[in-house]
């Protein structure tokens, strides 16, 4: 409520965060998993007779790893931070003020991780074998440390655990119920992505090279820990989800709300399908390691990216209708404020700091009320667009529905007076090309109110049970 809303026509601020975040998540998992891969590959190459040839190939892996993770991984990491500032300033401000030193610690690890990676890469020829193994191992430990920290902040948003605005118990918030399952899942998925990275680099080798077979087998075995444990860990993570989310997930399976409610469940299915495909893919290349070509390895990488898309989308949607669960709604309305008696009946625009001082019940009033309360999640005709969702709305039905919008458990309660509701409903009708004046809606609703109260007070024959 206190901040302006970044009203992007087609995409919507939420989707911008999602796009950047999904790219980052794949690369960051590859960055950490890749560290373990380098460490184990170094050890493995030391024990093999043709260790030098393996290290030559490992250097190609390290080059791809360095450029890919720093150029795209690090930058999209900063990108997420930029985009959440714009999508939900209030939520970001709360996280920053609560966990500034957690982020600072994660930054120290990020600095250390980068430096050790450069020392490992640029000292490739001059460092001793033992030092290289040490550096690779150290890189993985520090990189995993940065996950250890950021995972706390990430899972805090969905399951704040013991933390509340009053007690601001940092440790309870950081090691919240969702923390450990999420950490375990991400760690296993990291190894999986590292293996896929290995396949990607190994695919560039010629088929005749017997080494290719051994490297493809070595890389595809990295998929196993995730394949073995992920279903169990996902179930453990499912048990830590809030009750409302579990209900929505189950409801999603049966397609309530014109099939839209089920989007969260669908993304969970996307994750499961992607997981299955990767396991089968790795099985395929264990059977025929020499046949691996670049397009096949890239296809598995694409499947992994789509798996992340599914996982991150369903994790973000599990938080509906909050940005920080039970504390801050996704349109930056504080829950404790909305619960205050009378708060939700005051004029919405006067509550926000960005009251454009529009004449009430005019189209501008409708547009601004829509922008400041609804546009942080909904776009007009693009992603999660209002126009397709309100196709069957009339001015009056919309006016009345707004009062009940939080009943499905997906949207926050409406804040604002009847004028605001009328203005927004009129604005939505204008989006459909039907011009209705907000004042007219108001008078119709009032007339209906009067007639219903008159008939309700008259004695009726059968008594309601």
């Amino acid at each position: 409520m206190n901040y302006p809303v970044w009203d992007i026509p087609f995409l919507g601020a939420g989707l911008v965060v999602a796009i950047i975040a999904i790219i980052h998540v794949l690369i960051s998992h590859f960055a950490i998993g890749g560290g373990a891969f380098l460490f184990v590959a170094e050890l493995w190459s030391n024990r093999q007779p043709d260790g030098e040839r393996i290290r030559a190939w490992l250097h190609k892996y390290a080059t791809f790893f360095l450029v890919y993770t720093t150029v795209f991984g690090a930058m999209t990491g900063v990108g997420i931070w930029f985009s959440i500032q714009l999508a939900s300033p209030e939520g970001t401000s709360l996280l920053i003020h609560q966990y500034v030193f957690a982020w600072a610690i994660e930054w120290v690890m990020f600095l250390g991780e980068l430096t050790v990676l450069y020392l490992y890469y640029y000292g490739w020829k001059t460092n001793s074998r033992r030092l290289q193994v040490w550096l690779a191992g150290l890189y993985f430990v520090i990189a995993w440390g940065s996950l250890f920290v950021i995972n706390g902040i990430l899972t805090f948003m969905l399951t704040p655990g013991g933390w509340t605005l009053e007690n601001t118990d940092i440790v309870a918030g950081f090691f919240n119920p969702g923390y450990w399952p999420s950490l375990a899942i991400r760690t296993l998925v990291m190894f999986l992505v590292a293996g896929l990275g290995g396949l990607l680099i190994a695919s560039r080798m010629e088929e005749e090279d017997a080494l290719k077979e051994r490297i493809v087998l070595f890389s595809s075995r990295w998929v196993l820990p995730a394949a073995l444990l992920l279903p169990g860990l996902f179930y453990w993570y499912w048990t830590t989800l809030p009750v409302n989310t579990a209900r929505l997930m189950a409801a999603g399976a049966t397609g309530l709300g014109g099939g839209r409610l089920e989007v969260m469940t669908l993304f969970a299915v996307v994750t499961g399908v992607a997981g299955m495909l990767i396991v089968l893919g790795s099985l395929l290349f264990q059977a025929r390691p020499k046949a691996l070509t670049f397009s096949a390895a890239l296809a598995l990488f694409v499947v992994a990216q789509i798996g992340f898309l599914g996982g991150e989308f369903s994790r973000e949607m599990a938080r509906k209708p909050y940005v920080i669960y039970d504390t801050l709604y996704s349109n930056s309305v504080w829950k404790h404020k909305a619960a205050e008696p009378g708060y939700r009946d005051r004029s919405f625009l006067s509550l926000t700091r960005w009251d454009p001082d529009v004449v009430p019940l005019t189209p501008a009033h409708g547009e601004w009320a829509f922008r400041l309360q609804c546009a942080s999640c909904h776009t007009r005709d693009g992603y999660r667009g209002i126009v397709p969702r309100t196709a069957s709305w009339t001015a009056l039905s919309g006016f009345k529905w707004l009062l009940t919008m939080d009943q499905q458990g997906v949207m926050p309660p409406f804040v604002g007076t009847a004028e605001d509701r009328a203005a927004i409903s009129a604005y939505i009708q204008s989006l459909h090309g039907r011009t209705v004046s907000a004042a007219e809606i108001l008078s119709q609703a009032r007339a209906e109110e009067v007639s219903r109260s008159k008939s309700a007070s008259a004695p009726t024959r059968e008594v309601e049970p």
Partner: protein
Amino acid sequence: MGDMVKRDAPAGPEPNRVDKGRRRFLWVTGGLGLAWLGLSAYPVYRYIAPRPVPDPFGKEGRAAVKKVSPADVAARGAGANGSYGQRGCIVFRTPQGELKAFDSKCTHAGCNVNFAGDSISCHCHGGIYDFDGKNVSGPPPRPLTPLKVFEENGVLYVAPSDQGKEV
């Protein structure tokens, strides 16, 4: 044009016997692959799984009887087959004047029994029930499920009877 296929020549007597280590490993991943396949086939199973039959009595605990009006069962000995929800029922008035109703699914093979004035018979395999729904003769193993029946402003309603077990 020479066939330049780069085919690795079959080496050794048993060219296609995969070495033990990798075979065991293939089985492990294969098993995991099948497990995951089953996991993500779950949505398809849920899609195909039969839909739950809605409880005919619904929230108010009673269901209107269709195709039988109070007039049809006004006289003694009068009765007819009707339906409630998706299920069939027979409603009749015994010679003593008592209004009765049963779920018309024959306990033998599921055909709907028929009210024939003096008795209740099932045409599929010749099962006969008496007016208390007890299976008198023929293959039916169990009595019919009784239903509580009452009339309310011109419409017959049935409700689950308390003593009979749910069919």
